């Protein structure tokens, strides 16, 4: 019999460490905790930010451990391995509900242990315990040779599980108490203290890569296209280039290694273009850097674009998106029908005007009355000046009641009409607009285009309910353009 305690083979650990540079310490601690003859633990938590190699290392390590244990035959007299380590990885991101996660767990475990029997439904943690117990028990009976075995469950990203019941994590943490030889591995981003409700769970931290580490890892990727002068030159330029990219772009926008790599790879062809064109050579790196300085000053590469870049060009089929932010709404203003535009303007006014000033802005009659309301005694005025008021525009759009917006709409509609629209002097039937289904439809359309945003629950109340509260979702620039296109000067009605 071999000794009770032995670590996994050193060869395997070093090869793994070379595959994942800068993570040797984590790999060794994890290997100790997972290895069958190591220091097995019921629960292990791996935590660290995105792109720090948690899942990849756990998976690679488990894979090697399982093959290694399979190979450790008992002096070659039987085919049955003495030790067996099996593992099942469950990705929480693929699981839609908590129950889905449990079903998935049972499914992957069944696959991992080559379970042939029927797999029952699994609706809660209690059933999961029964099912897992059944499978592992059955397995032990089926191959008796393996005296020492261990099964590892890996819950990847369990802290982001959708619709997880509150008892899920504590329940899973106690699986190992009931089922023997089971290790549960949790991969999380930032664990809350004591989130398993169990003391003494070993945590292994995967810190973010520091700059030298990150550059070391990046240097292992080889960029395309290569420099004409050879691979060595390319590698040298690439490492200096990534360092420059890190300092100028990645450092301040999240030091995530994946994003850094993708940005570097995207910028690389443009960066070495002067070399490929033969204008510059790679050796004075400083000159290359200066020639390409605009690449490092432009932050637009950091913003992921959903429209891909031109290389795939079909003539006429693709239109380059306008870069200026102004252009994005102008199309809407031109395309919306006349009354939809007016409604949009009215919504903006309703969102940005306080309702107590409505009488001032929209009442046609009796300007003397207005003054009474707007003014006040000397006392009240002094008290208002004391308070610092923030401009309504800076406060953002406020919610308004649909009826109020409709009232404003009818008010500005008269104004828009009296100015005479686009030269058609026809006497059209204006009075037909009150309570018309077309207006209601226009409001519903605006709401479904999300130019008006409904407040509160998404499905609560009808869209046309008078008490329904809305907020406008377009800015001042757009509204001014839209208002001018229908002959309304929106400033006239704004409070400040």
């Amino acid at each position, binding site marked *: 019999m071999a000794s009770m305690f032995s670590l996994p083979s050193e060869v395997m650990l070093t090869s793994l460490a070379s595959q994942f540079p800068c993570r040797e310490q984590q790999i060794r601690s994890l290997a100790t905790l997972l290895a069958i003859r190591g220091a097995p633990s019921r629960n292990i938590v791996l935590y660290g930010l995105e792109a720090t190699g948690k899942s990849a290392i756990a998976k690679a390590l488990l894979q090697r451990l399982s093959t290694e244990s399979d190979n450790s035959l008992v002096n070659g007299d039987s085919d049955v391995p003495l030790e067996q380590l099996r593992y099942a990885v469950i990705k929480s991101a693929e699981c839609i509900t908590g129950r889905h996660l449990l*079903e998935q767990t049972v499914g992957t475990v069944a696959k991992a242990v080559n379970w042939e029997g029927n797999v029952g439904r699994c609706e809660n943690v209690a059933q999961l315990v029964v099912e897992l117990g059944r499978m592992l028990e059955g397995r032990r009976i089926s191959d008796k040779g393996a005296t020492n075995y261990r099964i590892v469950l890996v819950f990847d990203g369990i802290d982001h599980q959708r619709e997880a019941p509150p008892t899920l994590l504590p329940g899973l943490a106690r699986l190992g108490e009931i089922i023997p030889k089971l290790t549960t591995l949790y991969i999380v981003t930032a664990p809350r203290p004591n989130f398993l409700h169990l003391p003494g769970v070993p945590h292994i931290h995967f810190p973010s890569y520091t700059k030298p580490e990150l550059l070391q890892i990046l240097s292992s990727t080889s960029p395309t296209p290569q420099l004409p002068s050879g691979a060595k030159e390319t590698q040298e330029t690439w490492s200096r280039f990534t360092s420059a990219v890190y300092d100028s772009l990645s450092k301040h926008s999240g030091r995530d290694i994946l994003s850094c790599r993708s940005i570097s790879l995207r910028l690389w062809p443009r960066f070495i273009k002067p070399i490929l064109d033969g204008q510059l050579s790679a050796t004075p790196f400083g000159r290359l850097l200066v020639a390409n300085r605009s690449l490092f000053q432009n932050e637009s590469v950091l913003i*992921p674009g959903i429209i891909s870049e031109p290389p795939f060009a079909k003539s006429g089929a693709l239109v380059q998106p306008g870069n200026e932010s102004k252009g994005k709404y102008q199309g809407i203003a031109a395309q*919306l029908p006349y009354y939809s535009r007016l409604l949009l303007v009215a919504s903006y006014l309703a969102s940005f005007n306080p309702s107590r000033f409505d009488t001032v802005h929209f009442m046609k009659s009796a300007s003397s009355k207005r003054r009474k309301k707007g003014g006040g005694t000397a006392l009240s005025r002094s008290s208002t000046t004391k308070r610092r008021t923030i401009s309504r525009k800076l406060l953002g759009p406020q919610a308004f009641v649909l009826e109020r917006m409709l009232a404003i709409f009818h008010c500005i509609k008269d104004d828009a009409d009296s100015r005479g629209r686009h030269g058609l002097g026809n006497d059209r039937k204006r009075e037909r607009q009150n309570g018309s289904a077309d207006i209601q439809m226009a409001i519903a359309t605006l709401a479904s285009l999300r130019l008006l945003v409904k407040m509160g629950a998404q499905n609560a109340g009808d869209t046309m309910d008078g008490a329904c509260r809305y907020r406008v979702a377009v800015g001042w620039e757009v509204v001014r353009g839209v208002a001018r296109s229908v002959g309304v000067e929106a400033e006239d009605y704004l409070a400040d």
Partner: protein
Amino acid sequence: MSDVGETNSHTGFDAIDHQPAYIYTPSNTNDDALERPTKRRKVARGRPSVLQPHDSINSLVFEPLLGDFETLECVQQRQDLFQKCWSETDARIQSILNEANEDTLAEVTAFVDGPGDINQVDDERVPASFIVTGPNIASQDLLFKQLSARLKKEINGPIVILRSGDASNLKAVLKQLIRDATNQRSEDEELSQEQDGRKLLNYDLEILQSYVKKHGSQRVVVAFQDSEAFDTNLVVDLVTLFSAESCSSWMDRIPFTLLFGIATSVELFQERLPRAASRCLYGFRFDVEQTSSILERIFQSAVVNTKASLRLGSEVVASLMERQYDHVQSVQSFIVALKYAYMCHFYGNALSILTNPSTSSQLLLKLIKPYHFEAIRMLPSFRKLIELRVESQELDRARELIQDDTILVQEIEGALESKDGNILRLLRAFHVFASALSEPPSGIDLYMTIFEGALSNSDYLKRALDSVKRMTPDDLVVFIQRIKGAIENGSYELDLDGWADEDEGLIRELRDVEMKALGLSENSADTEKPIRSSDAIHSKGLRTTVIAQRVQLSYEKSTITEEEKEFINLIDHVSRLLEQYFTLENPKDIFLNELWLCDSADSFLDVFAPRPRAAIENALSAPHEYLTCEMGGSEAGLSSTHPPTAIIYQSYLEAGSLINMADLWTTFHEILSGKKGDEGDEREALMQFYRALADLKLVGMVKQSKKKADHLAKVAWKGL
């Protein structure tokens, strides 16, 4: 009212919806209330509903007109005629609609079909195409239907279209996605939802994965029809679930491709997506043909087309276009309106049988009965005809037309025979005008002007003639060639054949002018002395000379060369020709224009722009306009004879934004007891009060207030 609503609501529509007036049955008759309301239950409606429309096609749907004197034969004829005319027009429209999105469809299909090797190997973002459709949401439906049909044909793989309405949460969306995707090959056996002896949940994408594996699908296309209306979180969840950029990686097992229908703009859409989602997508933008240009084409082929059996009058077109501009820019609504025009015409106009193009006029005249003659004599165009005869001192003829049916028959025969010629003349003018100018006015505007009979003094003609005056000989040649081309070739869109042999005179004159203009321009090229346009010749040149530091202004007398004189004559000749050609008869003055011209805008507005809210408010505030006097009271304002809901509505209008229930009840009770003169039955009054309030709540005018106890919040104001 509520009873009826209860029983009928499950049938999908309410008969009352289409009733012009609601017949009020007072609730005092309590006998009905004792009966048990019919229970809702599921009735198998599959087969009978399939059979019903089939029957109705054969049977007569149209009602006999002319005071029920119309023979069934005529009614049948009208119905058949409608079906024939509309199906022809509809086919033309559909073919245009199918063509309209052709480019977009081809591009999107190419994109979806194209291999994913555009991006690098390790880049596992989801390919997505963003189809910018414009703010008309209604048209997206058609586009996506076409798209799905197209993709199904050309691409091996399921296509699923998701709409915001049936996507409430992630689970439901995935369920639908999987169900729709796996049901698309109906001939296959039911896909097993089991894997390794384990039954999968119905929202588990593994089902889809096994489907894809089994059928070897290249692509799984998921289309978000109205992506703006989707809950953003839902889109994000789906996109991150599909893509491999995040740790869940269905993309490497299921080849997803996403289509987004975007009504506003891609930038706006991207702004709403969080970075987590937008970094998982890459794709291209596709633009759809604008509604206005499709509309123009449909208008040309459905209304202007020579084969269209019904013309829309300028008034109708104007009101339709106004609605398009003001409210909905939608091709569908235009088609619906057009169909309605056809229906109205054939349903309501007994004389529409005379337009049947397939039967000869003799046969038609046999159908005509004396009451038809009466109807014809009532037409405004008949009146105009008589007036014309009287003006031209043909009094006998006029009297005969009024009195003698046989004379009228001759006149009708003549009108029917010349009808097609008249329309053709208008359409030819339309085509020539539209194709002669380099910047023609929009077809719809031009059509309206022509069918108003106002082309000869319209701005369009004036502008055209002015532009002729500014032409140089070369321009004139091009212009005349364009006119000649239009006449000789006709128009494909309008189904207009060339008519060069019918308009020989005009063609000959034009050819003459062309030859002369050509000769002039050649001469001028030889002599290198350009011939000015006639406009330039007539305008006086102002000459400034500076002599001894003084500016002298003098009018330049332009000297006209012989060639130029000839050219001016040519231009004048062309202008005269054109003016003459475009002086058209007003179609409304043509006898029997009512048979083929549909021109009453009022009915359209009532049908297509209903005002439900205004109608309800009006009915509640003035019930006497709808009900009989004793039932509804004859006067405005508060009255005890009004229905209880109307009484409460009156007090509701007078109240502030918060309504005290106790006050409302007191007022109501007082008004009711005032009617009876005595105390009255308080229980009965209370019942009516409750019922009336429930009605108001149902309509959405009041709701419970949280601000104050025992108060109602006023939700709707009148007249908005």
